[in-house]
């Protein structure tokens, strides 16, 4: 369970979130500028909150009062950003194995193989990032983030370069893999259709505040109506 009670100011923008994410799979939905990426960076430890705390399964990741801030990479948290940010001078296999220094060489090779197979990228092992398409790069970025097997996975619209069918297929495999390893996942999107279709718990983030949290059909009822009206349906 992820418990968040934090505030962060970025210029004139004020993010204030107080929430418990208990579901295995939560979608944070909100328009551009709502603070979704800022929230993910705070959860990942790349930025520090001004006030408040973050705890994962009872373990404190950040606590401003107690001056605790676990560094990224030491929080059992992975973040897959919209931009894949693969290391351009390393092969796909070396990219995926970058976070596996603790494993022996053979264990690392085995894990890399497993992760590439998960994202349907086994044939890309020796390629350089410049030789990958946008969708391939996003899948490799996902494999690299998952390779250390985190407890919390943060996805910042990571499938934007994948077409619908490829995205759905990957999502199915991913959900199965994450479920088996009890990895809690938070996916951020500004696409109401994606959020609605996920069937997951949805948190509606608006202007730096979570204004609703619950099942997709309830939280996104208004959005669904709006979309249907635009399409001329009922």
């Amino acid at each position: 369970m992820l418990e968040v009670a934090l505030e962060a100011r970025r210029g004139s923008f004020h993010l204030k979130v107080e929430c418990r994410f208990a579901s295995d799979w939560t979608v944070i939905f909100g328009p551009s500028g709502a603070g979704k990426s800022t929230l993910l960076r705070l959860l990942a430890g790349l930025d520090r909150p001004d006030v408040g705390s973050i705890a994962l399964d009872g373990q404190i990741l950040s606590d401003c009062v107690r001056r605790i801030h676990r560094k990224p990479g030491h929080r059992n948290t992975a973040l897959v950003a919209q931009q894949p940010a693969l290391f351009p001078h390393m092969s796909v296999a070396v990219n995926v194995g970058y976070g596996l220094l603790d494993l022996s060489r053979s264990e690392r090779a085995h894990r890399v193989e497993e992760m590439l197979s998960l994202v349907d990228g086994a044939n890309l092992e020796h390629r350089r990032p410049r030789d990958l398409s946008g969708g391939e790069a996003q899948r490799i970025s996902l494999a690299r983030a998952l390779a250390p097997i985190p407890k919390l996975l943060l996805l910042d619209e990571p499938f934007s370069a994948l077409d619908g069918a490829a995205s759905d297929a990957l999502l199915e495999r991913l959900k199965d893999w994450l479920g088996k390893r009890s990895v809690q996942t938070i996916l951020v999107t500004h696409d109401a259709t994606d959020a609605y279709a996920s069937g997951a718990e949805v948190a509606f983030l608006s202007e730096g505040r979570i204004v609703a949290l619950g099942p997709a059909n309830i939280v996104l009822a208004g959005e669904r109506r709006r979309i249907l009206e635009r399409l001329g349906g009922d």
Partner: protein
Amino acid sequence: MDWQALALTLRLATVTTAILVLVSVPLSALLILGRSRCLAILEALATLPLVLPPTVLGFFLLVLLGPRTAVGRGIIALLGHPLAFSFSGLVVGSVIYSLPFAVQPLVAGFAAVEPGLVDAARLLGANSLRIVFTLFVPLARRSLLAAAVLTFLHTVGEFGVVLMLGGDIPGATRTLSILLYNQVENFDYAAASRTAAILLALSVAALLAIYSGTRPRRGPHA
């Protein structure tokens, strides 16, 4: 031709370049990755030799390394002789004088590494040292080459610091720049021309090394 002066100049430039590459990589990485406000002071200090007249820097070092200061006395007690008017003293002076020529290209090169890559490495558990050696150094290798060549050239051509700190001792502190000055002072223009030609050739060769190594490769035009 004074081969001794040429050999001394090349030795001084090589030693200075090696020391500065070792010092500047972590220093530049600290300036990019660090968050402390004190780093602005460090960056200003590392840039100071760029704007300070070489004779002023040479004078400060001459005083600092001499027997009148605690630092100088400590060095004399340690080495048995003062650093001023010795090859080691020239190395100290050259390292300080050429520091900005090594740090500036590296800071620019490291800063150009996409922040998303650094974030990704940190999320995967990489510490600063690993980020420097697996991301900064390979991705900014052209800046590293530029820093090394500029430091080498700057040391080869330095005059004010060498004269103030080392004087003109053949085999110990007489570099090509000092030799050229002596030759001109003695109206020996033929010898001065040869010395100047060597300095020019060294500079052109080094700059060619930079530009041939750092020119972006472009594919054939459509």
